[in-house]
């Protein structure tokens, strides 16, 4: 793993990639994030964060088949790696613990 930190936006993006299923390329991921966060998200930010996540080994990407809707241009499809999933679970566990502490207080 080339980096073990996960920023807030990166965490959201990782979840969005996982949630988008098989069709997780730039457009649906950006739309999904906008939808769930309710704020405008620039495509540049999505690409930058996906780049970082890929560099850290939390996602991997591969080109999908060319589609006529996109004028024959291919999509770059992302998927979460096991390392990415482990990172997501770790983050979730920490948060759960914190929430439990808060609720018990």
């Amino acid at each position, binding site marked *: 793993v080339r980096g073990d930190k996960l920023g807030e936006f990166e965490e959201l993006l990782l979840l969005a990639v996982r949630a988008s299923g098989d069709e997780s390329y730039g*457009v649906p991921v*950006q739309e999904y994030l906008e939808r769930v966060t309710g704020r405008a998200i620039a495509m*540049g*930010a999505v690409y*930058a964060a996906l*780049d970082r996540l890929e560099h850290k080994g939390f996602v991997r990407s591969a080109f999908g088949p060319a589609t006529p809707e996109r004028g024959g*241009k291919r*999509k770059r499809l992302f998927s979460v790696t096991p390392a990415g999933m482990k990172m997501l679970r770790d983050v979730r566990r920490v948060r759960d613990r914190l929430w439990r502490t808060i609720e018990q207080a």
Partner: protein
Amino acid sequence: MRHTPLREARPPALGRWWLRRGRLGARQDEIEADLDELFRRRVRAQGRVLATWRYYLDVSSVRRWQRGRAAATPRRWAQTSTMIQDVVFACRLFRRQPLSMTFAIVGLALAIGVATAVFSIVNAIAFRGSGVADPASVVSILATVPARATNTTPTMGDWAYTDYLDISPAMTTMEVVARTNVSGAFRGPDDTGNGARVGVSAVSGNYFAVLGGRTIVGRPLTVDDDVDGAPAVAVTSYRFWQTQLRGDRAVIGRRIWIADEPFTIVGVAARGFVGPSSTSRLITAPALWTTLQGARNAARARNTADLRTAHASIDARGARPQLDASDREALGLLETNVSTTPAWNPPVQLFGRLRQGVTPHQARANAMAAAVGVTAGYPTPIGQPFAVTLGTIDRSADGDLMVVVSILLTTVALIMLVACANVANLLLATVIRRRHEISTRLALGASRARVVRQLMTESLLLGLAAGVLGWLLAIWLVPVAAARLQLPSDLVDVSPDWLVYVFAAALTVAASVTAGLTPAWRGGRLALVSVMKGDRAIGQSPGRTGRLRTTLVAGQAAASTLLLVTTALFVRSLVNASTIDIGFDTGRLMVVQAEQGVERRGWDANRIHAFRDAVLSHVEQVPGVAGATLVERVPFSGVVNRPMPNGEPVTRQETTADYFETVGVRVLRGRTYTPDEVRAGAPVAVISARLAQRAWGSDDPIGSSMERAWGMADLPGDRGGIMRRPAGTRVIGVVADTVTSVRHADVPTIYLPLAASTPAAVIVATTGNPHEAASRAERRPPGQPGRRSRGDVRRGSAAAPARAPGRPGRAGDQHWTHRARTGAHGTVRHDVVRCRAAVA
């Protein structure tokens, strides 16, 4: 109901153009398609205006991301471009300070040039190996004396050729090769060549195979070439091929002549193959290698020609009836030399390659057993106990040579140190002058590493320029220096090889880094605020740079002083060496190579003495000759020192009676021996003043026994030789000290009457310039068109006396002499001298 096709909603052209200008590289298509798709979806969901606005925001964010990516991963070109900037900047700096930079470059170039030239020559003399494969397993096999008599005087360690033939099959622990060195005038194919004397190694057929000598053209010598009746073939050295045969690959199969004997060239040895050497002398490749049988056949051909000429010359004068018995015998010996094979028996050097798993100790035991077994029937000619030693051929074991090499390389290092300190000083001054420029760059955001890199680039560039100039200087300097050092250009290859290239490159880089490191380091540590405010010159503390410069200057001055002192001492030594009183006047002396082998012919002492007298009287008749004498070993030609009982070395010389007068050695006390005493082999000795002082102190040595100097005398039955200490020898005179060896200048000398059994050389004193006499003798004998033999005479300096073939007499006489001298045939030469005496 049909929707408006999404495909028709296209993003604004300006936005698309702006995106394309973003240089997204491989991701261009993918991102364009993503943004197009997103635009269409937004048009559908939010309307065109909002979609267009968001599209521009997205393009802008993508471009920002792309710019950040490019900055985070600098491309190689960016680095190259920075480097080019540094170089251009450095060039500008050089242009701004032409004088000081030229001074620095020329200074460094001189140092690099001299250092490279010195290294080239040291490399040629000391570092370049013998070209022998795996030299660690090759040994030189040395005998105290050859078991059998040889044609010419052997040097210590040599064997007789016939010894080699008998011994080598018994040496099972190693593969033995033999070599003998001869020389002769060279004549190339188509009668080219300058007639210069070239060295030829006659070697056993397995020489190349055992030593791993390779050829680059043709084939090496093989055992099939070294059998009786095989054609005379030769392999040339790379250097000889380049210089004398113009590197022509078509030379294979062509014929050349050495001493008028034809050899067919079958191969050219690889560059660097010289062959092993057991001495500390300069390793020189012979011009040619031929086989021992080839040399033997050539010798036989020469002897045949000599005999024919002798008969023709005698017949022409009708002198045959006047020949006395001794002359007839001499002619008979010439005939014997032609008809019988044992007559050819030169001294040979033996080398062996140890077989796998054999230790040097086992090899020596084997060599000793083999040699003693084979030579049991042959009493050693000069009465020494026979012994075999194995020597290394490793040059690095040569202490004397390595001392000289160390001195030379230390001098080179000092020169480089001075040059580097000089350039460092200059660059430091430049940094101080440019402090504002450097601090401005630092203030504008340049990192300190960037500044150091800039300054290092400048010094590397300076070093590179100096390196190129220095290399050119070295190319010019090496042949000039080699000529001044009298290194034979056809034998010693001083042209640079890979080691010299590596040395020059490493030197250039090292000099650049050494000279540039300190200034660059100081430049990178400029105190920014202080300099910008104009407070201090440089550095974070006021005295540091001053101290640094002082240290540099002091180092430079110290190294310069050391160099000057060394140079002064060297020059003084040279002057001393040229003006030293060596005890006799070499300026009018010549050495005549003659008179060898007579002592081994079975003549009695009286006959040998009579013969020697005749030779001397003939030589003395030559115009310009004041006197002639015989001496065991010519001064400066490898005088042998022997330890006295107290361990101090002493030189032992056997001479004829007139040696002291002829050579000019002053008699201090007593007298020298008379011709009668020499003839009678009287037990008398003359000693040098130094020996008188050391052994007798204040006592008078005259009349006392030599045993006080040399310890116990020979036991009865000892045959004598170079270790001879005749019983009852008494001192009859003390003479001035002489210097007869460069390395052992203060060794005292014992002079004894020349014994009949001792080989000797003729020293001739001339009334005028010996070189003129040599020139007269150098004239080519007529009747041999196209056959030049200039190399027969070598002119020498006073320290290396010239050799002349003898009196320039009638054509026939000189021809005999010439023919006889071209090979290693003392016996033949001697006969020729005798025959010449008969017909003169």
